[in-house]
């Protein structure tokens, strides 16, 4: 393999490293040998009117509190999959008030595992995981109101 072909292989490897590590620039120099790689920077966020907030107005409290899809979320582990609420209602983590929870952190679930109940209009709706993995986070507490799309659990998939 020529030196130059080798370069291409090497660059490909370096690129993988850059991507995996979100590098913007990479420079390698061996004596006279030198490789500089610079990745496209994400575009600056230009003012998005959609995102603006009427500062003078009392902000609407999201029913879902800080776990709301719209609210500011705490930093979460990457690669987790969220189980979100398909309806609006009240979250229950246990099948009955005194029972054990459907799932806890660490519980292994598959797509058919019932993870909670959401009550809407007096109807108890069983919510299934729809993903396989281990429960990494329980985001709601029993009796809490949840809105459509709200994150209920996070799952570390297999």
């Amino acid at each position: 393999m020529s030196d130059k072909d080798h370069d291409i292989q090497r660059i490909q490897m370096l690129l993988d490293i850059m991507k995996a590590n979100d590098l913007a620039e990479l420079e390698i120099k061996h004596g006279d040998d030198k490789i500089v790689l610079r990745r496209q920077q994400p575009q600056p966020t230009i003012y998005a009117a959609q995102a603006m907030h009427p500062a003078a107005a009392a902000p609407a409290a999201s029913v879902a509190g800080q776990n709301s899809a719209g609210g500011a979320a705490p930093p979460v582990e990457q690669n987790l999959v969220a189980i979100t609420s398909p309806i609006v209602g009240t979250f229950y983590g246990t099948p009955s008030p005194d029972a054990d929870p459907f799932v806890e952190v660490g519980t292994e679930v598959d797509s058919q595992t019932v993870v909670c109940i959401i009550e809407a209009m007096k109807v108890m709706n069983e919510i299934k995981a729809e993903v396989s993995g281990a429960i990494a986070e329980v985001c709601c507490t029993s009796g809490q109101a949840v809105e459509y799309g709200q994150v209920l659990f996070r799952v570390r998939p297999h």
Partner: protein
Amino acid sequence: MLSRVLIANRGEIALRIIRACREMGIETVAVYSEADRAAPYLKLADEAVCIGPAECAASYLNIPRIISAAEITAAEAIHPGYGFLAENINFARICADCGITFVGPGVEAMRLLGDKVAAREVARNAKVPVVPGSDGAIKDEKEALKLAEKIGYPVIVKAAAGGGGRGMRVVHNDMGLRSGLAAAKAEAEAAFGDDCVYLEKFIVEPRHVEVQVMADAAGNAVHFYERDCSIQRRHQKMIEESPCPVLDEPTREKLCEAALRLIRQSNYVSAATVEFLVDKDKQFYFIEANTRIQVEHPVTEMVTGHDLIKWQLRIAGGETINIRQEDIRLRGVAMECRINAEDPQNNFSPCPGRIDAYIVPGGFGVRVDAFVHQGWTISPNYDSMIAKLIVHQNTRAEVIETMKRALREFVIEPVKTTIPACLEILSHNLFVKNKIDTGFVERTLF
């Protein structure tokens, strides 16, 4: 008084209701679909609940989700706005079953007036004139001729199973009726497999005039005069005004009294609109009632000085109407133009998209009811109305001039809007001279 109201709607009417609630000290719960997540009016509500994805069936039309949202936020009442679930009897019934106050009429009154045949029956009982006709299938030519003689030509022959103009013909004399009846029957048979036809007086070049009414649970009812909504295209209203510029005082009084009789007859509560056709001889005929607040309600608010949404909320909270009919007066003239994201040059097809430039008109006599802003993206999921531009002035001539200058000030780019179409109508000789009817726009302009 109500303490907490959920608004089961979106866009300008959701904002309109939030405004009224805030001014009355009523807390509000807004619901929204994912498409409306960034709407600024959500910030003005005390709570906001996401109820589903952009599709109406899974959000704004989804009764369980809306009821659930009311339950989890402890809302005492639901204001349905207009459209969506506003005239859905099932929704009103479920609200009642769940102990939630529906800001609107009771289920029974809604059923009575929501059904065209039942409403016609209510009108007759209340001695409100309806379009004269056979009220059922015509048996034979003899009966048809007799009826036509009674109600007067022209008459229209309609297929009972019909729609969209098929099996429909207007006839002007006995000879025409004889041939028209046969032809209509044949056409109806061919088109619908049912040759039943009925007969109705044909109102020539009518105006669409509707009376705004408000009634409380104690049986009080007042009217807020009428609106003229004759500027329509394919049955979509484009421009509305109040008062109707062709009514003289005695006719206006008779019309408004008739509307009140009909509302009282149906034990109605909340806001209603009673729609009439008015012919060239100033005869009016009841056509239908709308059991909700209407898009064009602001023109009535401007000429009467009464906030109709606040009246709805007060009545829903159990208050009685504490003003007398004679306290409600007409002041000047008001007009509304609907600004839709539609392309008048392309058959008014909807033009959703991002609004890159947006400047609203202002100044003397101008009211704007809108909810968009520069940077907002008009979703293809919902109706195309961007804003309602309402002008109030001392005279109709001044209203037209102020409306024209306000429309010319209005910047909405790059989406196409109905602004040029409204300007064309307002500048039309026949509109200025007030020689219009419900066919004017389609016959003359678009």
